[in-house]
């Protein structure tokens, strides 16, 4: 899939947070974007996963396939995040089972055929959107675990000047030699593990001289208490609810590198 835009909203990791999704799309519309694109993972952690699918499909939002979407679409037994820690793995399985059971078959079939990448032509440059990394949907690109040499190699190989990913749930961006950049747009389904219950997405605006698009981080305030109430009504684990209420991650922490882990509460 190929789009063109001058100002684009990029968000990932919806995690069935349909209230944050609706608020994000409203915020992006107010900010005057030409396009909004989802970088994948519609389900996980949150309640009523069908609601998020309905919102993005009704709005005609292009969606990159995340590992969750891939697993649900192919009836796989787990999310393929690769947890080995027994506690993390147990919570990941609870989340995956709930999401699988509550995602309509028609949505799962739609997820199966989502593209692994989307390219956006911005003035003067190619922007590649994918979920984890351009070589692997479930590869984590953590800010503190990727050398510049590796990110430059990814850009060289995929032939884009700007690469945008999600999957880790933590936003960051880095400029690289040759006016290139890598942006992790974060996640709107759960907060960024910093004690702030608001969620994060990015708006990229083209540089008229063909340089790296500017990255504007948008914090979205949404009815997180209402989401927490829905999660409790669905008997989702209190650990997941806690993250929504407090902004601190409580599970799936094993894969965080030291710097990212040390910034969180758990």
């Amino acid at each position, binding site marked *: 899939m190929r789009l063109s835009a001058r100002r684009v909203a990029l968000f990932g990791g919806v995690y069935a947070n349909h209230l944050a999704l609706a608020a994000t799309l409203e915020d992006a519309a107010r900010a005057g974007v030409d396009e909004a694109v989802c970088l994948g993972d519609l389900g996980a952690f949150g309640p009523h996963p069908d609601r998020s699918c309905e919102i993005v499909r009704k709005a005609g939002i292009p969606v990159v396939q995340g590992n969750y979407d891939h697993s649900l679409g192919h009836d796989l037994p787990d999310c393929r995040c690769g947890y080995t820690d027994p506690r993390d793995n147990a919570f990941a399985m609870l989340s995956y089972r709930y999401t699988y059971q509550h995602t309509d078959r028609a949505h799962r079939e739609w997820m199966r055929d989502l593209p692994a990448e989307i390219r956006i032509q911005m003035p003067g440059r190619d922007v590649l959107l994918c979920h984890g990394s351009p070589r692997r949907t479930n590869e984590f690109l953590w800010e503190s675990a990727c050398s510049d040499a590796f990110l430059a190699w990814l850009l060289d190989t*995929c032939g884009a000047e700007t690469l945008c990913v999600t999957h880790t749930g933590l936003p960051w961006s880095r400029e690289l030699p040759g006016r290139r950049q890598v942006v992790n747009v974060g996640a709107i389904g759960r907060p960024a593990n910093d004690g702030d219950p608001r969620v994060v997405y990015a708006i990229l605006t083209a540089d008229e001289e063909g340089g790296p698009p500017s990255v504007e981080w948008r914090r979205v305030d949404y009815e997180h208490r209402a989401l927490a109430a829905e999660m409790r009504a669905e008997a989702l684990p209190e650990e997941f609810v806690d993250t929504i209420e407090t902004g601190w991650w409580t599970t799936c922490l094993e894969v965080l590198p030291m710097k990212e882990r040390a910034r969180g509460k758990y």
Partner: protein
Amino acid sequence: MAFEASRPRLLPHTDPVAAPVLAPGHLDALWFQVTGTLCNLRCAHCFLSCAPENEAFGLLSVEEIRPRLEESVPLGVREYYFTGGEPFLHPRIVEILSLALSYGPTTVLTNGTLLRPRHVEPLAAAAAASPWSLEFRLSLDGFDADSNDPLRGAGSFERAMDGFELLLRHGFLPIVTIVRTWDPDAEPAVYERFVAELAARGCTRPRIKTMPALRIGCEAERIGGYRDYERVTNEMLEEYDLDQLVCAHSRVVTDRGIWVCPILLDAPDGDLGDDLGEAAAAPYALAHGACHTCWMHGAICANPGAAAPEIGARAIEVAIGAIESTASAGGSA
């Protein structure tokens, strides 16, 4: 697809009993055998038989390490690992790790017993100044002296825990790595004991990586080596995620040249010459018993989060009952 050329692949084979030959993918991880096979401990299960007098591989000098880091940049290496032996026997280890941190994410594998403030204080400063994580992986084999010291030596548990606490006090979050030497059924209970012990030492963010035993070196003498049938075959690699094999994306710098992986230092065919670029592309026959362990468990040398299994690859099913009981027992974070 642009990345196809950088994926590991098997070379075509005609001899059905010959070992599969893997052409590696992109070099993600560059390892440094920074203190060779020299160690202050003499662990009963060490797959390299590291010991105070084992000089099979020696120390790497800063002058040997620096050009390898430089060479790794055009190769697009993602991260660096430093191992031995015991890295903190190296008189210039602080300088070496600080240098690596100016290139990318850096991990050091230690037994923790030699860690002192003169190491940890400057490393905490170097880590704070770097955009990249400095990971400490600290080896233990038991959650108390009674279970740890028979394998790692008298007094080693308390000395390692002193090192662990020193790291915590300087803001590090060490990953405790444990070789599985217990009955598989005991794993959940053993894991809980480790979490409790680390919590008692002030660790609220337990990071634990369990690893399979490698039945070579001392471990082969302790419990027996690999049987002839414990080998990787071409059939076993059908629908297998080749990225799970360490040699698919890693190489090791030693004082004797570039080696294929951090495990097979004693294998003569592990020597891939002195040119990092050529060694990174050199095919390797998966002919060893240890290759079977690597195949079975996957990503045994990588940090957690660095090597999730391929999304389309065959799943290893985990018992559903075990998962759910762990979740309900997990309690709050």
